[in-house]
């Protein structure tokens, strides 16, 4: 252990040391880049450099799935395990890949060449089954050979785009990110210019008048959030872009970041101006390495061109953006857990209230918005709130990105105005169910969502219509299942996801997700015990009612929805019931 040469680490830490604890995740990434994993001595040196207690560095390392305490392969392969990829054959593929692994007896300090890990949804559902090799995505991986996967010589999977309107996705699907030049030539950063010519209050009024609500799942009115942050006492203030997209089945934010990064930056800069923030963060999930690199490039371009930094566009407004990578924790999509993560801590959600608008990042007033929400901002300023309000329905304004995957003919990212019937999206735009099969159900809102049945096909996709139908819009995930799919298997995968991703802070979720998983395993194996129905109900409702954060409160949502729709699937087998 002691033969580890800490010299390169000490050099690397010079960049992070002055920032202190907030630089912990970036510093750990840098250390892991050097040594391949994070042995004790390396962690201790990072702790010393950043002046963080040793044991808290350890706590952070062990919380995040993408930090390794033990040696891992030079090539790490993440195989996606979510419903869409499983339906496309990820399990047999995983087996096939694992057969190629050489077997080694565990040996201290030994570093294998390849490590294969099951991963939660990688946000590549339209390319299922998907794998990440050293952070680089491969779509339709079942069709590739072992060599093709390990070498990762294939093309990056491209954007699959559809829909009936093209506002948010106007710059998407070109096979590469829109350059700054091209972006500006098409009116890019014009909305920022417009915003800076007005007062911050006027910008907030415009956003309020547009009726825009958050696209990350909670649907909170964006203008109201900004107003709350703007009016809060305390400085400095922060704006944060939540790009920790990890809801199984969601990939919209990844596409926006990879194809049209400047629109997001423009939205965030306008947000900062409106609330009076001088610093912004974009927190991108660890699995989205490509999106991170593209956003990083875009930030550099924008800074060079004077859209970021001091006196933006020659006005008296100073603002800059720092990018942060998550490290494999779904919980960090929860806004307060995300703050904790930026602060260099385990991603434990905080108790609310206080809310971020008054007590957010570093305890300061903070406005945190989802990627897609921010992408709407330039649009609203360009076309005006009134014109924007005419898109969609009266109560759900604008357009919405839907991530369609599973058993549809054309899985992909679809943009439609709010109010579009589900049937139009599914049948006309996405080509309907894969040939020869019929619709059984669709999961709305991802793992934290609920199932739609055939009777829901004519529901209009708006907040108000879906609420009436008892379906969550969530972040816009729709995973479609045909008649051949065993919904118990889908529920087991979702239960597994939550058990893996629970942070462990509050009791209902910490233990409830584990019990839910155990019972779902019995259900799938046809070995339900008498009383399992009530156990699932009690566990589910206790998590829903009593958990601390949104993860726990929705961890039973899909299972409870399935129990309502298909009670027969959860029956105790004849042989076991008396």
């Amino acid at each position, binding site marked *: 252990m002691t033969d580890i040469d800490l010299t390169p680490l000490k050099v690397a830490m010079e960049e992070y040391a002055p920032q202190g604890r907030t630089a912990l995740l970036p510093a750990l990434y840098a250390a892991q880049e050097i040594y391949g994993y994070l042995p004790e001595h390396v*962690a201790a040196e990072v702790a010393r450099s950043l002046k963080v207690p040793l044991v808290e560095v350890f706590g952070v390392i062990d919380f995040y799935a993408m930090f390794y305490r033990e040696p891992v392969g030079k090539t790490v392969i993440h195989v996606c395990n979510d419903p869409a990829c499983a339906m496309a054959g990820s399990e047999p593929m995983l087996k096939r890949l694992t057969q190629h692994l050489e077997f080694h007896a565990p040996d201290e300090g030994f570093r294998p060449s390849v490590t294969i890990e099951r991963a939660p949804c990688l946000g590549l559902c339209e390319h299922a089954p998907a794998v990440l090799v050293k952070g680089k995505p491969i779509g339709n991986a079942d069709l590739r050979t072992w060599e093709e996967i390990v070498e990762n010589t294939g093309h990056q999977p491209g954007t699959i785009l559809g829909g009936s309107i093209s506002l948010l996705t106007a710059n998407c699907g070109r096979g590469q990110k829109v350059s700054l030049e091209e972006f500006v030539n098409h009116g890019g950063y014009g909305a920022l210019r417009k915003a800076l010519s007005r007062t911050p209050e006027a910008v907030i009024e415009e956003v309020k008048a547009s009726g825009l609500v958050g696209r990350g799942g909670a649907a909170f009115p964006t203008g109201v959030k900004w107003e709350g942050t703007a009016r809060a006492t305390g400085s400095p203030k922060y704006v944060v872009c939540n790009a920790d997209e990890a809801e199984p089945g969601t990939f919209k934010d990844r596409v926006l970041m990879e194809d049209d990064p400047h629109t997001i930056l423009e939205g965030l800069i306008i947000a900062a101006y409106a609330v009076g923030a001088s610093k912004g963060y974009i927190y991108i999930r660890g699995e989205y390495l490509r999106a991170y690199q593209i956003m990083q490039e875009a930030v550099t371009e924008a800074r060079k061109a004077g859209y970021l930094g001091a006196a933006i566009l020659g006005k008296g407004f100073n603002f800059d953006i720092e990018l942060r990578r998550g490290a494999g924790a779904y919980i960090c999509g929860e806004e307060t857990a995300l703050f904790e993560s930026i602060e260099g801590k385990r991603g434990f959600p905080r108790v609310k209230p206080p809310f971020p608008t008054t007590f957010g990042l570093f305890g300061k007033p903070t406005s945190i918005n989802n990627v897609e929400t921010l992408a709407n901002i330039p649009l609203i300023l360009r076309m005006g709130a009134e014109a924007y309000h005419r898109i969609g329905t009266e109560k759900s304004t604008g357009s919405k990105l839907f991530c369609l995957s599973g058993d549809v003919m054309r899985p992909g990212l679809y943009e439609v105005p709010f109010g579009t019937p589900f049937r139009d999206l599914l049948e006309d735009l996405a080509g309907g169910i894969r040939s020869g099969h019929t619709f059984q159900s669709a999961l709305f809102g991802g793992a934290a969502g609920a199932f739609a049945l055939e009777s829901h096909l004519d529901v209009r996709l708006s907040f108000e219509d879906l609420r009436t139908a008892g379906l969550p819009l969530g972040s816009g995930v729709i995973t479609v299942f045909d008649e051949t799919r065993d919904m118990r298997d889908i529920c087991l995968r979702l239960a597994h996801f939550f058990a893996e991703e629970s942070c462990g802070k509050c009791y209902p979720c910490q233990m409830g997700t584990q019990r839910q998983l155990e019972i779902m395993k019995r259900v799938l194996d046809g070995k339900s015990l008498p009383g399992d129905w009530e156990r699932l109900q009690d566990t589910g409702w206790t998590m829903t009612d009593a958990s601390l954060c949104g993860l726990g409160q929705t961890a039973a949502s899909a299972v409870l929805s399935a129990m309502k729709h298909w009670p027969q699937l959860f029956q105790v087998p004849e042989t076991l019931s008396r």
Partner: protein
Amino acid sequence: MSEIINLTIDGKQVAVPPGTTILAAAREAGIEIPTICFHEATTSNALCRICVVEVEGARVLVPSCVAAVGEGMKVQTQSERVIRSRRTILELLESTVDLSEAPEIQQMVVDYQAVNDRFPQAEERQSLPIDDNPMYLRDYSKCILCWRCVQVCAEDAQYTFAINFSGRGYETQISTFYEIPMPESTCVFCGQCVGVCPTGALKPKRQWLLELGRTPDEIMDLTRGERRSRRRRVEPDVNEQA
């Protein structure tokens, strides 16, 4: 803001100063709300959720240990939803850890009619006792992750930072840096963690030996080495005597 907040708890009129928690207001009114992770001396994290109550108009249940009272608030401490959550949380605990030395929680199990073995075939959080120092024993199969020990070791009291968490979710456990033995950690053996542990997961070593049936003499023998080593530190005196 008015000087006094008026609310009702289980139909009873209560008047308390602003900023009072629902838990404190209820106690003042003689209404007992159960708590597990709550401790007067540590920061409340509202994580055990046993103290949840139903507040009219709130979408989910509210942790009374941290939620402040509001004017006109209507609180139910014994509603059907509250009872179901408390009972299920207790049953989850029962199925996960060894509560044999947690009399307060055992009483709650009785009060809420929680069923022993409600979750058959459940994976328990088992681990072997860690006996790595002369002062106390750590038996994490009894640990309910109330966080108190971590808190008193950190900013809530001692600023020692010897313990934190390993893993996450169901696999979470209290741990030293890379699971090193306690004497190699920054632990100063102040004993505060042992003092706030509600389940016997942390226990003074001599108490543990007594419970194992060792006689006081045996315990003296077993720990003599430690006392000897302490005596050796004053060796200069020995030389003088010689």
